[in-house]
């Protein structure tokens, strides 16, 4: 017997601010975007970048401080007993900066430090947060590229369904990394302008920083996770077929596993990276499953592509928009890749419903989840 998984409490930091500020920015289309210098094949280049308003340094200490702030907001209502029954999962695509630090400390003579040894991994944020907030000692960091934190959410669902834990805190984190932006630049996936989801003139993604968290449990809540499906199915390591059959497959399986029919879906939050190949595959997948009147939208033009954090960040933003009475319009879209399959161009009044959220990543990881809000 499956328990109903409730999405209980969330907190975020995006380039537009905290959750309230981000929803306000989306509602008023008042978008704050910065720039960063990255190295390219030829020279240094200034690229648009959705940076957090209060700078988070590319260091363990700075990231940890921000994560601590998010977790403190999420677990504030949990008493000591409940915290001991709470696991913590992190989804991130961040390169492990512990290793970078240690490489610098031990490989280059001019940077060398005396030998020290301290168990560290990419999960060290989670382990330290567990200790800080008195949570159960179970921590885990999931690293499946852009599906990292949504996959952590599905893992959290399993941990609760199996009775292993009463609650799980799921975090998504990705902040500016020289390696990451340099890597995307080398793959020629970055736009020098704005993200144009599903538009014929789309030319790439704009990276973004974010820290987001959600508390999952079984007590009554207006938002529930009906289910989801995650798999590894692609044409190659960076993309699926242009036909989008792999995306359509994971979307269908997500509906099947959550006992949801196509007609039940009120709207879809697309992954919509605004890259030529990903958007083509996703729009084709949408066309395979839904008719042309189907409503779908993209959130990345407001906050950037926040990579491993986008799972929880976009979930929290989407839920909060609906709580505020609307589904956000897709900005920067003019001419659709496929005639008549157009993302919504105006904020759509919506207070409840069943929604599909798509997330796709490098390494063949595709994930689709179904959430539902019922008015109390």
């Amino acid at each position, binding site marked *: 017997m*499956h328990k109903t998984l409730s999405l209980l409490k969330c907190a975020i930091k995006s380039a537009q601010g905290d959750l309230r500020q981000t929803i306000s920015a989306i509602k008023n289309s008042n978008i704050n975007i910065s720039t960063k210098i990255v190295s390219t094949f030829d020279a240094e280049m200034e690229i648009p970048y959705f940076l957090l308003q209060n700078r988070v340094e590319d260091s363990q200490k700075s990231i940890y401080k921000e994560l601590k702030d998010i977790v403190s907001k999420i677990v504030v209502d949990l008493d000591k007993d409940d915290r001991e029954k709470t696991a913590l999962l992190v989804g991130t695509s961040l*390169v*492990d900066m*512990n290793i970078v630090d*240690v490489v610098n400390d031990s490989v280059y003579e001019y940077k060398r430090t005396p030998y020290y040894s301290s168990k560290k991994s990419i999960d060290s944020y989670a382990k330290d947060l567990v200790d800080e907030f008195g949570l159960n000692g179970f*921590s*885990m960091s999931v690293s499946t590229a852009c599906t990292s934190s949504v996959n952590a959410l599905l893992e959290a669902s*399993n941990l609760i369904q199996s009775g292993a834990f009463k609650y799980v805190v799921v975090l998504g984190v990705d902040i500016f990394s020289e390696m990451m932006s340099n890597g995307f630049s080398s793959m020629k996936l970055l736009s020098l302008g704005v993200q144009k989801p599903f538009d014929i003139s789309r030319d790439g993604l704009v990276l973004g920083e974010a820290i987001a968290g959600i508390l999952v449990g079984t007590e009554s809540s207006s938002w529930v996770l009906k289910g989801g499906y995650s798999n*590894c199915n692609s044409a190659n390591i960076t993309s699926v077929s242009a036909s989008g059959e792999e995306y359509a497959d994971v979307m269908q399986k997500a509906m099947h596993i959550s006992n949801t029919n196509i007609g039940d879906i009120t709207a879809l939050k697309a992954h919509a990276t605004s890259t030529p190949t990903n958007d083509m595959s996703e729009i084709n997948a949408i066309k395979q499953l839904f008719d042309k009147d189907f409503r779908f939208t993209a959130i990345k033009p407001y906050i950037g592509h926040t990579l491993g954090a986008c799972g929880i960040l976009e979930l929290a933003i989407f839920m909060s928009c609906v709580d505020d009475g609307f589904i956000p319009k897709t900005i920067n879209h003019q001419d659709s890749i496929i005639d008549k399959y157009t993302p919504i161009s105006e904020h759509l009044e919506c207070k409840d419903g069943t929604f599909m959220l798509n997330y796709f990543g490098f*390494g063949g990881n595709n994930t689709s989840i179904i959430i539902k809000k019922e008015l109390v």
Partner: protein
Amino acid sequence: MKLYIKATSTYLSDEELDIKKELKQRYKLDTRRQDSFIHLAVLGAQRLKDITDIKKDDELYLTSGVGNIDVIQRINRSVYEEKQFIKPFDFINTLGNTTSYYVATSLGIKGKNIFQISDNFTYINSLISIYSSLSMSKKEAIFGCVDLVSEPDEILKRVLGISENCELVSGVNYQKLSVNNEDSISEIEFDTKFYTLDEIKEILKDSDKEIFSSFRCSEIDAKKESKFFETELSYVINKRVESKKDMIYIDCFNGRYKILRLKSLR
């Protein structure tokens, strides 16, 4: 919580082997664009495939003590020291799930695929995740543990929290796991509970099973492996499964202990 082992595979770097050559010649696999960490992970997977059926929708879980240090070291040098751009495939290889992708592709798996690391009990915590997932999906899981010693090994020693003179070894160990005991060869039992040292000593006092422990558990009188890698528990389990023997394994971090019990079903 109980999981049943259906098959295991093991490789330690003590065994003289040109892994890349083995993958190309014996397994006819394309090794281009991959690095040593990925090759190690794929080798272990192929050895498992040699002895058991892998289904398309088997769930794949990979874990590691710290992940792919080699590629981070290489990129670190490119970006910060040489001020060069990153090669696209080096960039892709920094992502944890790139290794999972190549493993899944080599096994023909198209289902769930998770790369995850826990800073403390990465093996046992992964078992808890797998148990929870299989309890819901009723599928089987392929669980791989990969640890590569890169040069200089001082990097790994500093990251693992071990002494400078500890001897390290690279290892890849796989288990095929199920919540169903049919055709299984061993049973592993574990839970989410943490124990104190006193509680552990009390439990071990009455045990008639052989006791093994991680080298971190210096206060426990138990057998320990002479060479270390973070996921050595997977190796110890595979060895005991092969010899059809039971055991109790104790691991610890920061004064908190975990127990895993292995029971042979053959």
